[in-house]
């Protein structure tokens, strides 16, 4: 009977089995770790996009609520809209006291630029014109240019916007549907978020 030494080396089979087990364990570990990281990044990405949309959505809803339906314009492709705003530079709602009517300050224009994946806004002042007191769509303002002619020089307010559509599902209600996506750093598949926001004209 051969003597078994305490310093005997592992057999090749033992080493291979151990290595296989180790590889499997590390593989599983890597997979879990990768998935966890992806989940974390996905969560962070989704949270970031959701936060951005919420901020924009709140701003858009506020603007619609304080505006008037008869000032609404939308482009045929539903990618842009304009409404009147009665807020001055300090964010204070201006109104004509004697008539309890809003004193309009500017048109607020929201439009999507697909090539830049941006939702942009710009404003067109109506101060000093009869439009201050008489609500109406932007097509009937000043030279009567269509809304499409105002879609430039806007400031980006929401990034990563792939698709966007303004619509009016029923009177006094506006709907904003948008899809955002962000390419993850650990994945070829982009993270995406689709949301619909409703707002009602209150004035």
């Amino acid at each position, binding site marked *: 009977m051969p003597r078994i030494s*305490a310093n005997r080396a592992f057999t090749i089979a033992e080493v291979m089995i151990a290595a296989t087990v180790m590889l499997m364990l590390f593989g599983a570990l890597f997979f*879990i770790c990768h998935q966890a990281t992806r989940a*974390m990044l996905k969560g962070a990405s989704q949270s970031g996009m959701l936060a951005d949309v919420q901020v924009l959505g709140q701003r858009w809803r506020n603007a619609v609520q304080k505006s008037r339906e008869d000032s609404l314009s939308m482009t045929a492709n539903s990618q842009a809209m304009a409404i009147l705003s009665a807020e001055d530079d300090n964010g204070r709602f201006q109104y*004509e006291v*004697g008539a309890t009517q809003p004193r309009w300050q500017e048109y607020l224009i929201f439009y999507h630029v697909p090539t830049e994946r941006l939702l942009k806004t710009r404003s067109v002042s109506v101060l000093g014109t009869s439009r201050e*007191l008489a609500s109406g769509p932007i097509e009937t303002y000043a030279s009567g240019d269509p809304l499409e002619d105002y879609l430039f020089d806007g400031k980006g307010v929401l990034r990563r916007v792939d698709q966007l559509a303004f619509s009016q599902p029923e009177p006094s209600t506006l709907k904003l549907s948008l899809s955002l996506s962000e390419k993850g750093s650990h994945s070829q598949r982009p993270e995406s978020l689709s949301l619909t926001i409703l707002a009602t004209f209150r004035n």
Partner: protein
Amino acid sequence: MISYQRGYGSGFSLPALLLFVPLLLVMVLALFVSLTQGSQWTGRYQGHVAAEYVAEAGAADALQQLKAQPNWVRGFQNKAMIDGRGTYTITFNQSGSNLKITDSINNFDGEHPDSALGPETVPDGTALLSVAAKVGAYEKRAFFLIGTGDPIIRVKHALLASGRIQLRGRTNIRAVESLAEEGNLSALVQSNQEGHGTDMVSWNGLPNQLDIRGEVRSSSRSATAVNLSGYVPTGGIITSAAQVPVPPAGIVANVYAKRGAQPFTQDLTTVPSGESYRGSDLEVHGDLVLEGDLYVEGNLKVNGSITGNGSVYVTGDSELYGDASINAKNRVALHSQGHVKLNGFDGDRYLDARAAADTSDADGDGQPDFSRWLSEARWATEFIESEASAGRWGVDSDLDLALSVLAPGLTPDDRASQFQTEGHATLGHHDVGATLVRMKERLGTLDPGPTRDFMIKKLENLSELYSANGGVLGQADAKAFEDFQNHGTIRGVVEGANDPGIGGAAATTEELERRRAIALNIVSQVNTDKLGSSYFQGLIYTNGAFIADNQVTVLGAVVVNDDGSQRALSTSSGPVAPGDLLLRNGSNIAYVKDFFFGPQTRPRGPRRILLHLGDG
């Protein structure tokens, strides 16, 4: 054996443990962070939305309180929602000072127009609500303007101008509680223009032609800001007076907002109930009768008067003449962004011209008939007002007998003066009766024209005012006052107040006093020596200049407020600046408090949220 077993069992589990535990920790941490972040966003959004709805609930609750109790200012302090999720707070500050953005203001009474947004930011008849909502850790503040949307302008001044007030010729200014109640008030006349300007309120005319029963104020600091050629009003003169806030009328905005209202065409002369809109200049031939409100995007010219009950908003200039008769129910609010010209008919000049031209002397007394009728009519109207003011009423009193000098006393065809038959030699030889009817009949033989037609209507109306109820008008005394109460008509009011019980049940002492107060008020408006005066009843508000000419009597008030939108008005006597108020050729103003603070001035329609002013 032992060492082998030891060597084989050690060195693997520990590294494995050390490797797995941090990884597990990282995973758990990632999961926790992700979930927490998502939860936070969701919670924040939910709290935000919930607070928004709680604020809406608070506004709805306050609206109900204001509907039930217009002077409600108690507010809410952390009032809980029914399901307990969230509270709302509304705090009123009616002091007018130390106003904060968190303060709500109730200005339904028109006495609290200021808010943290600035002076005059809460319109009359509205309430500004600042609602603080709290749901858990989330708070939201929302602002609402509550009201009926029925704009009201309440003024306390007979004349209020941002520029100069120029009075020319015979001018009377007074104030009364209402056309139906006894009670003279102190009339207020004010020029709001600050600085050191002189003659901000001025008058020139012949001695004793100015009568102001009230106070004249100017915001100018000049010692000669008020120049009434030595006349001192009963209430005195005040210079360096505080400016009176002029309530904005929002005329253009009001008109623009009504572009969708029912169209008012050129051929119409009656504005139907509700709201009517005219998108261009409007010229009305004859009277414009209001049963509703009219919005004109352009100029308005009425070749008669505006009567009835309603409001007119005009983005341009307005020009009208005046009404031949008084009707206590007439209440017009004319808001004109441009200038307002109130042309009378110069009826007295017309009558004097007729008296000079008409030399027929049918009774052969050596005095032309028309001239005599005119002088008798002037005497009698003045005498009756004087007797009524002194309270000398009664059957067969001098006042009673003097009525027959003006109008028939026994039958419609009666032309006799009871002064003659009763022999009041001490009061003079007033032996010609029904002079108003006689003049009306004589004018009827002349060619028609605006002033002739106006005077015929006016003389007929005055004749009915002084006629006897039973034999002439065919009605009981009580019916005269019933019609006055219900329809504002003044037929038989004077005789009805004098002869209680003729043609009906005797009036009680209280009823008699009420009738006499009404009669005195009406008689005072007739204005004795101004048979040719025309009337406007209600409020005239303009952002341009105001000119009244040719014996115009305004029962109500005139507010002239230059807002910078108008250029000077060219007249034959020179330009009149926006904000200036010019009364010339014998105009009268009688401020009627009831028109602005009476029960009929309550806002029409249900209270609702007029404006959603946003969130804070």
